[in-house]
């Protein structure tokens, strides 16, 4: 065969062409099988063995505790600025209507902060649901039953906390307690009643309390403990006026032997006061030169002094109110520790580190409980204070919850004893101030405990919820000048309009909002 014969050559070309195409076609499956580059999937993730095989999922939930939508601007506005502890702060118009409405009421359904915090807490819930799903269903991860149970308890603690925030902020919320097998079909869950939400919270926290360890090794300091679960459970019961259960849960914390009242009040809110024997649960944060913000939380920076240069420590929101300032008894050192004063031409404002604040800052008062150590600022190379832990639950809170429940149950002596423990520390050895409460009249003692709770925990985010559960929100907030507050509407936030829109109306608005 002559290859140069035109006819043969033509057929040859055709055969070669077809052969070439067939060859390509033959390897088509190999060609199209491509792996993800530089990413694990949940299927091929090399799960670590050992004690915490589910930590990879749980840590995602812990991480979300630091999210902007969870414990940041919206959290500060909705819990603190709405209360009579604080005013908006910053400069008069800063933050716009979204921030100002939190101070003055009513909050609009379109308020971006409301949507942010809704998404933040549901994201947190979702991460706990993923962890619970992995614990229950992922057979690739070898784990002993007790390891599974402890991991489940940890996830349920965080989920219980998230729903407790949501139910107090919004009232009726959708109850999502698992990863849906068919997300599309079950995406749009209507709201449950607060009673149904509380039932899940109690179930989760009881499980957590029963199955979490009382403490962790130093490597994991700050992880959820049985004490944290019981302490939170006490607050859940207290909110529902379940006095004896609240007393029991608080008592579990007190009897655990993990906590005491020895940490000086001044130290509790310093960096070196993090995770002491006072601490029951804190949102953990840290910072370094390398990561000045990534491992921290934007909690302190939003409240830091709004000055310039050295005094540009933050946005200056959430300033202690005159009502809070007036609430302290004469000489109570907790006032100075809670309120950081701007210097005036006649009176210098002195920080806990001895610096003198400048004259002419936009506000006369700032939150002293988020004031950061200047030495750490220098080490980290940041003035923001992203490293500041958030004290969610501390021992004095548990003692006061115990006292409150005991008083309601008529256990006056028990109540007085726990109240005195708190006041005694506040005195810091100065017996001229804060005399012991001695009344055995239940109503008077109730007032005394409420007063103590306010001044002990000023600027610590429980005040609004306390006012609502005590039923005195209207009088207290009107007295503090927030006269727009309407108890028929403002005890809960509006359901975010964006969420109602997304659900195409399956979610319904809270009463008296439109």
């Amino acid at each position: 065969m002559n290859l140069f014969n035109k006819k043969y050559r033509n057929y040859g070309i055709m055969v070669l062409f077809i052969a070439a195409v067939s060859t390509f076609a033959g390897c088509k499956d190999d060609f199209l099988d491509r792996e993800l580059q530089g990413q694990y999937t949940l299927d091929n993730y090399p799960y670590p063995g050992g004690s915490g095989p589910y930590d990879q999922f749980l840590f995602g939930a812990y991480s979300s505790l630091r999210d902007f939508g969870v414990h940041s601007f919206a959290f500060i506005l909705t819990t603190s600025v709405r209360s009579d502890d604080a005013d908006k702060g910053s400069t008069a118009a800063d933050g716009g209507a979204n921030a100002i409405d939190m101070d003055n009421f009513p909050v609009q359904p379109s308020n971006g902060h409301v949507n942010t915090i809704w998404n933040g807490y549901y994201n947190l819930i979702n991460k706990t649901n993923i962890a619970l799903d992995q614990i229950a269903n992922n057979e690739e991860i070898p784990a002993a039953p007790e390891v599974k149970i402890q991991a489940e308890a940890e996830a349920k603690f965080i989920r219980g906390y998230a729903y407790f925030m949501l139910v107090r902020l919004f009232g009726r919320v959708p109850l999502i307690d698992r990863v849906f097998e068919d997300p599309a079909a079950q995406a749009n869950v209507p709201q449950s009643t607060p009673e149904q939400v509380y039932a899940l919270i109690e179930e989760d926290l009881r499980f957590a309390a029963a199955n979490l360890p009382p403490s962790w090794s130093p490597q994991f300091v700050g992880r959820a403990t049985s004490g944290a679960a019981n302490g939170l459970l006490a607050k859940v019961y207290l909110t529902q006026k379940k006095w004896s259960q609240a007393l029991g849960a608080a008592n579990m914390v007190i009897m655990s032997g993990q906590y005491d009242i020895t940490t000086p009040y001044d130290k509790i809110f310093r960096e070196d006061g993090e995770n002491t024997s006072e601490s029951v649960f804190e949102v953990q944060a840290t910072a370094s030169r390398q990561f000045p913000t990534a491992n921290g939380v934007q909690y302190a920076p939003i409240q830091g002094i709004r000055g310039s240069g050295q005094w540009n420590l933050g946005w200056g929101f959430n300033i202690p109110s005159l009502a809070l300032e007036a609430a302290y008894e004469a000489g109570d050192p907790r006032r100075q520790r809670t309120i950081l004063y701007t210097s005036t031409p006649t009176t210098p404002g002195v920080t806990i580190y001895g610096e003198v604040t400048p004259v002419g800052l936009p506000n006369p008062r700032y939150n002293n409980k988020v004031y950061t150590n200047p030495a750490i600022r220098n080490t980290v190379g940041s003035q923001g204070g992203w490293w500041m832990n958030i004290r969610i639950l501390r021992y004095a809170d548990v003692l006061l919850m115990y006292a409150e429940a005991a008083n309601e149950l008529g256990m006056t002596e028990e109540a007085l004893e726990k109240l005195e423990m708190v006041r005694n520390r506040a005195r810091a050895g100065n017996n001229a101030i804060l005399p012991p409460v001695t009344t055995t009249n239940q109503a008077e003692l109730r007032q005394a405990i409420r007063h103590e709770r306010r001044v002990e925990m000023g600027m610590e985010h429980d005040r609004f919820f306390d006012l609502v559960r005590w039923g005195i929100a209207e009088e207290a907030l009107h007295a503090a000048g927030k006269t727009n507050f309407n108890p028929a509407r403002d005890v809960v936030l509006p359901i975010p309009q964006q969420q109602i829109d997304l659900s195409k109306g399956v979610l319904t608005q809270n009463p008296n909002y439109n």
Partner: protein
Amino acid sequence: MKNYLLLVLCLFSFHVLFAQENITVRGKVTDASDGQPLIGAGVQIKGTTQGTVTDIDGNYELQNVPPNATLVISYVGYSDQEHPVNNRAVINAQLGSAISELEQVVVVGYGTQRKRDLTGSISSVSGQEIAQQPNVNPVSSLQGKVAGLTVVNSGRAGASPTVRIRGVNSTNNTDPLYVVDGIFQNNIDYLNPGDIESIEVLRDPSSIAIFGLQGGNGVIIVTTKRAAKGETRVNFQSNVGVQRVQKKIDVVDAAGFRQLYNEQLANLNAAPFDYTNYNANTDWQDLIFQNALITNNNLSISNSGEKTTTLVSIGYNEQEGVIKYDNYKKYIARLNQEIRITDNIKVGADLTGFHFRQQGIAGGILNNALWAAPIVPVQEGDRYYSMPSFQRAQVGNPVANINRTRGNTVDQGYRVVGSLFGEVKFLENFTARSTVYTSLGFNTFRGYTPLPFTVINLGEGGAPTEDFFNPLSRTSVSQSQSQGRRFQQDHTLTYNKTFADKHSVTALAGFTTLFTATSNVSGSRTDTTLVIPRDPNFWYLGIVDESMPMSTGGGGSEIAFMSFLGRINYAFNNKYLVNLSFRRDGSSIFAPGSDTRWGDFGSVGLGWVVSDESFFEGVTALDFLKLRGAWGEVGSALGFPANLYQPGAVIANRAIFGNNVNASVGPAYVPDPNLHWEVVRGIDLGLDLRAIDSKLSAEFTLYDRTTKDILTRVTLPGTAGDYEFRTNLGNISNRGIEVALGWTDQIGDFNYSFSPNFSYNKNNVESIGPNLEFQIVGNGGVNLTETGQSIGYFYGYRQTGIYQTTADMDRVATFPNSLPGDIAFEDVNGDGILSPADRTFLGTPFPKWNFGGNFTMGYKGFDASVDVQGVAGNEIYVERRNATFAVLNYEANRLNAWRGPGTSNVEPILDNTRGNNFLFSSYFLEPGDYFRFRNIQIGYTFGAMENLSKIGLKKLRLSLSGQNVATFSRTSGYTPEAPLSNPIASGADNGLYPVPATYSIGVSATF
């Protein structure tokens, strides 16, 4: 070459003396398309051998012409013309190309087709139209040229425009596919406008079906220049121009600011601001803008011999931004070579090298300049004044920002695109062609964070203080590199034959694969002890000791496509046209398994050339009439991430315990197990006609296109913030009309043409999902996508006025907290109160109407053209006015704020605590319609004059042009071209870069 022709023709010409009554006729013969003289054109008296040829200027003189004779003027490649003399002494002629516009071929997928045989909607834009405009990116020049094409330009140096073909057909990526000489690309940023021969815009599903999974959004085919046949040619093109901001945004000056801020504080019952230290009146916009240079240059040399053709070209383009220090430079070199081994075998190669250098600008600088208070002075030496307390934390000094950002990056990129092909013709009718392509991109970036400037804080009361904005900040450097690799192979076999002079068949079978991969690495280090100098020579990671704080990152992706394709074009008697196409496409994006991984796409097109029917013979006014219809189904997976079916594990979240950092893992999203591509299906009906000696051309097209199975991210409402479920849901339709008209004529030496086009598109979301009640919101709820409306429409309250008095408020619907001075909204549902249920459709960000027009004229050496362009039927959200995070400078509209009953029925009271006034409403919308003089150009072409030809110059054209010289719009921003890049969150002006007016001069010379 023409000179040789002249010589040859001269040898055959001769002169015959005639009687005295005969006259002498002279005139000039030019090319009708560009007015160029035709050298050596034949001029002959009809029916005789008497004639002459034109000289080097296209002039001729013919003596002894009988007054009643007819001249026949002819030139190779042009249609002959006959001119009765009628005793005229001067007869000029403009010769038109012999290949009528209908006979010209257009590039379609994997081949070409005569324009008259098309059954779909394909428009061509010539390279000349693209190169003429002073744009660094060739896509910019398509604006207004093609019916059904929306181009949104940005004035930012080197920016890629946003391109939409026939509206928005998905909630995901809706960019078209670019096919450059065969290779699939995501953009054509790397091409020099001067290197482009033509651009074809393929719009209908039948034309794009052959492109399979990547063609769903429409296809833009770019053909680059090849050596012209038969001559050695050197071509040099250059234009240089200056860009200017056409209009500034009208913000108040210092006096206006004082007035409005005082008023606002009074309305808030707040203490007045102490202006003692703030006495400046600064126009921040003036300080950040500049007149900016733009230049495009291209030199190409081509040669075409018997065996080989070669083209080499180099190009250099530079664009400065109208914002200071914004700069983009690109360098392009091309080599194209073709070797004909035998008559039937040819091979060729194409190589393009591209390099860019970019200087970025400070982020958000435009809003910064609009928002900064005008009462603050700029600087004192190298110390800058900081803003007053009410905006100090949020708004920086704009001049400090641009100066601090200036030159802090070394941002460069390289791209090499090459291909090799071999083509064999055999058995007379077969052509086999194989091409392998590669496109390699490599970008490097180095960045520097300088120390903060010293600021002077004037303060309120008291003396000014001097400070750093952040005294703890340190210098740092970052370095990153990324590479993209793209390999493609196409193998096609074409069969072309006409049977019995009636049945003409072209059949194509092909196989193609495409592999794309990316990888990137990045890092940064901060020096906590040393101050790294502000000098790019130091900006490498290694300059900082590795014990210092650092971070690194890296990632990559791989995607593969494989396809089998086929097409049959059949014509009977040139009258009845049938075009069929098919593609089977598989991709690694989708899960293995034949149902999910492989898809089949195809189209049917039918055409009827009515004017070729015998019953049409008597109709002389109409030269050509074709009816066409096409149906096609194509996939859309362009821009889908690699391995979509397999969510990666997110490991970015870290749990902290004490000071210990612990990594975590979670799924990025939840995939539907049957995730697949989007399906685009549509029909196209059209009518093409040419009439009045082909002076009039018209194309009318109706289309109806639907995308189904849209890849949707359902952010499970109520369940989880950013945790999303990805599935295929929903249908979106686009229906519309496209009209392109043309008129070309000449009157003596004067020729002109007018070609307007317009298109109308109606977008409708037919459904966003049958089994799921949800809506898709964008831009914080401003844009809503829901069944029965246009995609991403503006959803909010409709302003009816301003509440003037409490008595006024008793009569109309209000919010519970409404007050006089607030915006009054329409009670849409009529329940007597205002609530979120009163939000309604306020308009769409996408223009319903696009129109353009091109008017050209030529007279002897002069030519002129005017391009106009515009859109209508859309709205723009003036988002920059809805910022409430601090006290910001006011735009001039606020001077008319409500100050008591009867003062304004448009502008609400100055009080930013009145939240209702910041609800998204029609108050924040402006009509997006505009009409623009896109390009005005005049040029003069010097013919081959003696002195020019001495230096070998064949042609020289000089031109003056103005781009965007006038824009008529009702928007308050710099430009009415709001971004349309995100389908579900479009149309917001939140610091839009000005689209400048450009005045340039150009030169084009051919040797």
